[in-house]
């Protein structure tokens, strides 16, 4: 038997995968990893991840091997070390496989100049899917584990490590993106040329009140010429909605399934992952493309 226990939670620790689909018409959000590029990279090192990734934001967790041994890999830019059972400490790197033995503790201190990081564990965490996905939506209380992870949460890894060989890939070292191409949103025509002009010519600051549901922006108010209240309709992640205060919100993975604010624009899938990694205070600009 192999098992892992959470000994320190860090912040916003949840289980995520590539998303929960086919249920949005029943009010269930797609959820999934905020930065899907990273879990795709981790797949190269830990192909047998069983879609059960641990996501953290800013401060990572500590996880300890309670029994047996496990192979893990961390993705994202983070500082971390391993506190070995024999008292020694080893600095370790993301995107390199790590073999952990009974009593070893992996401490992920923080993400560097970014927000989200991930842990993949070979053979997964022994979880059962919920509505065909492992992702946690903490607001709706849906998931294999329907809440953020906490200290003493223990995972049984049912199979043994397949090989002790060390695998690694070069750190993808994602460039920090601050200019985003966006495409017309369903209510683009609600905004005057002047409003559109300030949307594309001004700089927005990412607010600290951002989470898995949405990234709130602060900047010049973008006012709709019609209403800021439309009949609720289906919304997709990456949509930029503008409530009546004119401060845009980029809707992220835990989107409300339908919404009644006009959507001026939408990011493409890749850019949803990119924007998720910008810490509060980051300044961004939008470049509106005419067609997709």
């Amino acid at each position, binding site marked *: 038997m192999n098992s892992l226990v959470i000994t320190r939670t860090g912040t916003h620790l949840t289980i995520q995968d590539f998303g929960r689909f086919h249920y949005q*018409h029943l009010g*269930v959000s797609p959820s999934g990893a905020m930065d899907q590029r990273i879990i795709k990279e981790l797949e190269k090192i830990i192909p047998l991840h069983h879609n059960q990734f641990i996501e953290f934001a800013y401060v990572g967790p500590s996880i300890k091997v309670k029994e047996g041994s496990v192979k893990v890999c961390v993705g994202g830019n983070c500082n971390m070390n391993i506190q070995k059972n024999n008292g020694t400490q080893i600095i370790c790197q993301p995107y390199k496989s790590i073999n952990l033995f009974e009593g070893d503790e992996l401490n992920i201190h923080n993400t560097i100049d970014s927000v989200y990081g991930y842990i993949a564990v070979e053979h997964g965490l022994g979880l059962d899917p919920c509505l065909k996905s492992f992702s946690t939506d903490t607001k709706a209380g849906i998931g294999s584990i329907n809440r953020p992870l906490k200290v003493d949460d223990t995972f049984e890894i049912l199979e043994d490590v397949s090989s002790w060989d060390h695998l690694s890939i070069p750190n993808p070292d994602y460039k920090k993106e601050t200019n985003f191409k966006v495409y*017309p949103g369903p209510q683009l025509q609600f905004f005057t040329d002047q409003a559109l002009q300030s949307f594309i010519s001004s700089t927005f600051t990412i607010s600290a009140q951002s989470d898995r549901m949405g990234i709130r922006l602060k900047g010049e108010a973008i006012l709709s010429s019609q209403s800021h209240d439309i009949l609720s*309709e289906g919304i997709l992640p990456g949509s930029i909605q503008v409530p009546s205060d004119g401060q845009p919100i980029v809707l992220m993975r835990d989107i409300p399934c339908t919404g009644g604010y006009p959507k001026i624009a939408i990011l493409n899938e890749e850019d949803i992952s990119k924007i998720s990694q910008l810490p509060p205070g980051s300044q961004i600009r939008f470049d509106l493309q005419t067609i*997709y």
Partner: protein
Amino acid sequence: MYFKGINSYGDRGMVLDFGDDSSKSISLEVNKAFSTISNLGLPLLNIIPSFNKIVIIFENSQIRDQNKEKITLEMSDIKSQSHKSANKTWKIPACYDESFALDLKLIQKLHQITKEEIINLHTSESYYTYYIGFMPGFPYLGDIPSQLITPRLATPRIKIPARSIGIAKNHTCIYPKISPGGWNIIGQIPFDIFDLQNPNPSLFLPGDKVSFYSVSNKEFQQIQKKHFSINELIKEYSS
């Protein structure tokens, strides 16, 4: 025919547009299109109906573009297509006792009607399920009798009890779970309408017909004790 056309929504999404108004006849067309497209077996990730739009998302832009033609073709004769509705008709027990009906007094005062009149009005109609949204399993039902039309609460409640029945504007709803919200609460139903353990987790589907009948607090408690599963509820309360 209300269908206006298909627009792109980002790199991998599309919106089927049925205009800007909302009515039951628009919704009937929306939900017919929703069930027709859902049953085509297209490789889509999500299809989300609402009052006058259907939003669809695919894995990537290529798959979206490949399927756009099929959907356009299907929509071109949606009106003439025969449509076997898989929708259900529900008769749902509801208790309108003061202990559940947190805003009954407010509505009595606003419309100058008695509690009995409110119950009679709310149970008099068979409501249409416009769509499911806001939270998992939450049905937007309508339209309620005009005498009951009430604005949303000026200050939303922080905690509405699970299974509460609400009314706001010309709609009525059921809160599947404890939630913040702004609907006026007039009663409660005695069972859960969303079950994560069931592969078909939502009791109601877009297009279902739902009516309520009034039960006493005692009957309410008796039904509650049975802890019906979704499948048992289907047998017991739908046709």
